[in-house]
């Protein structure tokens, strides 16, 4: 990264608030479709981005490697690549590796080396670590991002992938040739940072394992959230809202086993006055969650779309200080910052609504009903 953007500090060295556009599409029946619709949707909201970051997450895109972690990595030097590959070989079986195919685009410049690895943890290393497979992989990803300068893992889940760059999101989609990938859900993000370092790693979606977040907003609770989550082994190297939100969701959903609805009730907890009005059982659970994880409450404006293996969740801040629209048509659900971004790909939805602040919209694949993968634990009375 030496010599790259010398005048401005990089993402992670300073904290950069940004405004944004987000969009998400999912087929409940699991029917796969290419990334073109996400490109079309986000292009409508061109003016919500300023060319300093765009990106996509696609789910179900690597069926042939579904059992392996797909690591997408930016390298800013060959040395970083060597160091990182050495680390990966020490910790994982590398099943396949290649450059991620890209197509030259006049508006996308300064590209790093972009590589993809399909890996699985080395069984002996995994057993020795006394961790489960996901925790092991997550820790390795955090370690690379924190310790290997010039290497940045920007996607690390199974059968999913993140594609991001500095540029307008529609250009980023062309650059990564997203017409060539088919997934059952896509999320996309266009960024409007108020500062201009424009580092590729700083674009959205931000991800850890199969969790990806696209986010519009600037959270006022950032440092309270960051200092809390860093107690539990996460390193917020990018200093962005999206990063800290991703880690909090990973912690609550994967590590603590909270359902996504419960997660929403922690990070966008109802006001105490709302909780007071609930019946006793509900009141107890909501009070418990809000009090126990008080430092994970997010304040300030945000709308997010969380992607995970098997579904999407959209969530607004408690006051709904950012726009977020949802729509349904047949087996498809659409989520976006603006209604126009939905109507451009689905002019006649069966239903269109504006989710209430703090109320999550959770969509899972029909095949997952009843729970899989820790995302939908037994109903908790919420």
């Amino acid at each position, binding site marked *: 990264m030496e010599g790259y953007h010398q005048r401005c500090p990089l993402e992670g060295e300073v904290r950069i608030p940004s405004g944004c556009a987000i969009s998400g599409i999912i087929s409940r029946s699991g029917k796969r479709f290419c990334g073109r619709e996400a490109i079309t949707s986000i292009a409508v909201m061109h003016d919500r981005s300023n060319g300093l970051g765009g990106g996509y997450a696609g789910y179900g895109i690597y069926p042939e490697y579904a059992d392996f972690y797909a690591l997408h990595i930016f390298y800013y030097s060959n040395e970083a690549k060597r160091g990182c590959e050495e680390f990966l070989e020490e910790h994982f079986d590398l099943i396949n590796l290649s450059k991620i195919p890209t197509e030259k685009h006049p508006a996308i410049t300064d590209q790093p080396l972009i590589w993809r690895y399909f890996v699985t943890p080395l069984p002996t290393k995994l057993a020795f670590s006394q961790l489960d497979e996901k925790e092991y992989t997550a820790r390795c990803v955090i370690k690379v991002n924190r310790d290997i300068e010039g290497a940045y893992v920007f996607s690390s889940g199974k059968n999913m992938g993140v594609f991001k760059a500095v540029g307008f999101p529609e250009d980023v989609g062309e650059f990564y040739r997203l017409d060539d990938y088919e997934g059952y859900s896509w999320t996309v993000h266009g960024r409007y940072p108020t500062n201009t370092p424009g580092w590729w790693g700083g674009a959205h979606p931000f991800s850890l394992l199969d969790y990806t977040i696209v986010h519009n907003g600037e959270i*006022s609770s950032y440092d309270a959230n960051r200092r809390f989550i860093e*107690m539990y082994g996460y390193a917020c190297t990018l200093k962005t809202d999206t990063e800290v939100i991703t880690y909090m969701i990973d912690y609550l959903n994967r590590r603590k086993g909270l359902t996504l609805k419960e997660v929403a009730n922690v990070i966008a*907890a109802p006001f105490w006055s709302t909780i007071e009005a609930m019946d006793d059982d509900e009141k107890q659970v909501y*009070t418990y969650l809000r009090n*126990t994880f008080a*430092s994970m*409450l997010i304040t300030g*404006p945000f709308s997010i779309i969380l992607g995970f293996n098997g579904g999407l969740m959209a969530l607004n801040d*408690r006051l709904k200080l950012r726009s977020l629209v949802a729509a349904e048509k047949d087996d498809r659900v659409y989520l976006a910052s603006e209604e126009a971004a939905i109507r451009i790909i689905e002019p006649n939805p069966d239903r269109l609504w504006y989710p209430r602040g703090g109320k999550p919209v959770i969509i899972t694949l029909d095949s997952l009903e009843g729970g899989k993968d820790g995302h939908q634990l037994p109903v908790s009375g919420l």
Partner: protein
Amino acid sequence: MGINYLYPDFEVVRNFDRCITCRVCERQCANEVHSFDELRQRMKADESKCVNCHRCVSLCPTNALKIVKTDHTFKENANWKGEVIQDIYRQAQSGGVLLASMGTPKSYPVYWDKMLVNASQVTNPSIDPLREPMETRTYLGQKSTKIVRDGEGRIMTKTSPQLKLDIPIMFSAMSYGSISYNAHKSLALAAQKLGILYNTGEGGLHEDFYKYGKNTIVQVASGRFGVHPGYLNAGAAIEIKMGQGAKPGIGGHLPGSKIGEDISKTRMIPLHSDAISPAPHHDIYSIEDLRQLVFALKEATAYTKPVIVKVAAVHNISAIASGIARSGADIIAIDGFRGGTGAAPARTRDNVGIPIELALASVDERLRQEGIRNNVSLVVGGSIRSSSDVLKAIALGADAVYIATSALIALGCHLCRTCHSGKCNWGIATQNPELVKRLNPEIGSDHLVNLITAWNHELKEMMGGMGINSIEALRGNRLMLRGIGLNETELGILGIAHAGQ
């Protein structure tokens, strides 16, 4: 006694054109400064007794009085200042320890005044607390993040005992004895009205005040005055007092003259006997002993009350706090060295301990580094003077604050710093019934309620300005603070950037 080298600190300036010789000043001054000069038919003053408490000034119906600092002076000397010389005269005459009251008046840095607060502009909206919900409710206590579910997947919601505060401000420990019955009653009434807590201090709980139990923290200090099962179970929480910011490392002494009938009964000690709190707890010589007392108190109260451990901010405070956080304590209260006292040796008060801002910042950071910040709540005191101090304390990492001096000022205290004399003309730090009745608990509690309500409004305004609508999102949110005029080391300890960065 030889020559008295001391010239009075203050001059009582009386405007004789205004004075109507009503003699209210004479009746009001417990120090007997004012008297009527029969010969000259006018008031006179013995200024050597004046403590500058403003009682006479406040009650003079014609504004005929003011107290000014004397301009009498020693030959100028930057090293041997007048007060230094006077202290030596005093000790040369008395052979004793210099006594002082309230927080140190010395000009140590006040870090609250060197931190500035953020606000939203453009990229995110500020929030108007008059139009949107703005939450200051806080729960204090251990928060285990282990999720337990029953057979049907429902979350088990039982937690360690928690203290619920509607506003993250509590009245800190002041014993019945060091302050008056009416002062205690004012605090208890106000705590009840505000949905917060007051603290008995180490002098036990007067039987009249058991009814305020839900809003009471009962203290267990080294003297164990007034401690019995009924007392422990009377409050909402129990505080073990290990130390006090104004006098770290030393105990306390309430002279027998103040141990009247009521106090003797409340403290469970003989009438007119001195009440001496030892410097350490003689059953706590180490951290593992503290753990035993914590659990002894929990056993005595069937694990229904959170236990607070209060310590003075001293050099090694973060390691000490880390030990306490693993001792079973639910809440750590840290008292900074600018904190007040009813009586302390002046040298200790003015030289021992560290400022609360630095102690808080380093404790909060240490507990996070060790991953145990959620095991314990942090309450800080020791000179919280305004709502902006409260806000900055919470942004540095405190869950709530303790105030005492501010509360006494709301009750009429004028910070004359002579509490140890027992002649408080405002009816606060005295046991003289004639003086005590000057403080009306109803009016006193109204003033306290007004003060805390006003602070809460201000807190909400500033939170809203930052785009934060709930106090937990402010807690530990150091990005909302910037230092002004601080050096690298200070910024590093506080964990904040400098203004402009």
